[in-house]
């Protein structure tokens, strides 16, 4: 089997996600260890669970209610079969191909073509489309987009990004807290008086760099999940050309979704943030030309069964 067919691509992207999630774990452990070295056991044992707790409550609350929360944040309206029978037909086709339950469907009034999926599990999934994407895409392209969104549901990407956001959040809270403590001279109590100065400096460097590293890892995870969703989408439709043409339409269109909020940027099929202002390392999506090239390579393999 060629190594760029959808099955190989899907398993490679899954492997990379596990690696990145493990890296997140290592980073958290490293930060906790740095706190221990720099501030001693007393501070570490109160502050680490505190930061993880705050982050957990914040992120998991929004994860659990993700379908409802995203609806309010994006202004999407849930529609029924009568509102768009053709759209529902195409969605039902992909639902049958994926073997997933039928998701809720919503529409966002927006002049930029885009779409997203959310929901804590396949039974609470919601997929949404902007009014513009329904106007500009033909049936094949729309099928590709729907397959990409249903792939996020199938791969449980809301859960994956919640895990990533929790760790990144905890690390951000931790280092923010500790930096303040250092500036206001609260630190360096406890049992660290006879510590090795090299260890102290290393811990400080870890604390300063950790939030950036966590953010980079979070973005990398998001990019891998997008690439995985493209591969899974092809496993549903066996038609890479549909999604490829859809991405070309999105690439050619310069309008972006009006809500430029960072908070929900990662859920859209095409990043709503201006690509030029965000460097590639922090971007939540792989470059669209790269995604098109990958799909084109799959097309050249011919019909796959």
């Amino acid at each position, binding site marked *: 089997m060629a190594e760029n067919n959808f099955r190989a691509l899907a398993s490679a992207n899954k492997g990379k996600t596990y690696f990145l999630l493990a890296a997140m774990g290592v980073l958290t452990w490293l930060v906790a260890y740095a706190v221990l070295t720099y501030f001693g056991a007393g501070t570490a044992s109160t502050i680490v669970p505190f930061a993880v707790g705050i982050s957990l409550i914040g992120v998991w609350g929004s994860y659990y209610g993700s379908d409802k929360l995203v609806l309010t944040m994006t202004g999407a309206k849930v529609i029924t079969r009568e509102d768009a*029978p*053709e759209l529902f*037909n*195409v969605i*039902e*086709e*992909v639902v*049958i*191909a*994926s*073997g997933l339950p039928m998701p809720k469907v919503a529409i966002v009034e927006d002049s930029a073509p885009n779409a997203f999926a959310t929901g804590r599990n396949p039974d609470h999934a919601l997929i949404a489309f902007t009014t513009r994407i329904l106007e500009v895409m033909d049936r094949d392209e729309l099928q590709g987009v729907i397959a990409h969104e249903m792939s996020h549901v199938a791969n449980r990407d809301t859960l994956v990004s919640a895990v990533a956001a929790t760790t990144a959040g905890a690390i951000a809270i931790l280092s923010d807290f500790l930096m303040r403590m250092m500036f206001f001279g609260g630190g360096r109590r406890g049992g660290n008086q006879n510590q090795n100065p090299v260890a102290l400096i290393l811990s400080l460097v870890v604390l300063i760099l950790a939030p950036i590293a966590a953010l980079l890892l979070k973005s990398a995870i998001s990019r891998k999940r997008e690439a995985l969703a493209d591969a899974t989408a092809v496993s*549903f439709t*066996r038609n890479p050309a549909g999604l490829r043409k859809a991405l070309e339409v999105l690439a050619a269109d310069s309008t972006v979704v009006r809500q430029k909020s960072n908070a929900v940027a990662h859920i859209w099929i095409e990043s709503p943030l201006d690509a030029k202002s965000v460097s590639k390392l922090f971007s939540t999506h792989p470059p669209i030309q790269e995604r098109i090239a990958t799909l084109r390579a799959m097309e050249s393999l011919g*019909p796959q*069964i």
Partner: protein
Amino acid sequence: MEYIVIGAVILLVLFFIAQYNRLIRLNITVDEAFAQIEVQLKRRADLIPNLVETVKGYAAHEQSTFDAVVTARAKATSATTIADVAAADGALTNALKGLLAVAEAYPDLKASANFLSLQEELSTTENKVSFARQFYNDTVRSLNTAVKTIPTSFFAGFAKVDERDFYEVENPTDRNVPGVKF
């Protein structure tokens, strides 16, 4: 020492249960996937009388085309085994293509609202049939792999789960063109 033995036995039993359940679950998924194909084939069969009537209203003298569709439909609804269902399904798809080709020659027919909505229904149902088929074949693939590979293969006889037939489309070109193009 005895705790270790008891623990090992419990783990082994749990492992057996997991393998057994996996096979049963795969087997049920295949049944469900086949049921989905039948649902979609039935939907398509139900659309046909309506479609034939609509086309007849504009092109009454194309009797041979109508007959071909009606015969294929009768065969498709009476088929039972997977191979028969698959063959009849392929024949009906071809007959429907003939019917739609006839419709091409009648602009009034093509413009009628009734025909347009039937056409949309038919094209989505054709896609659903082919996706249901694809999903069925995927589930059969996982089941057959489990039946043949270690460790699940040890439990296949005990769970009374056997390899299943793929849903083969008779005409290999049909595989490449699942949808009806208009």
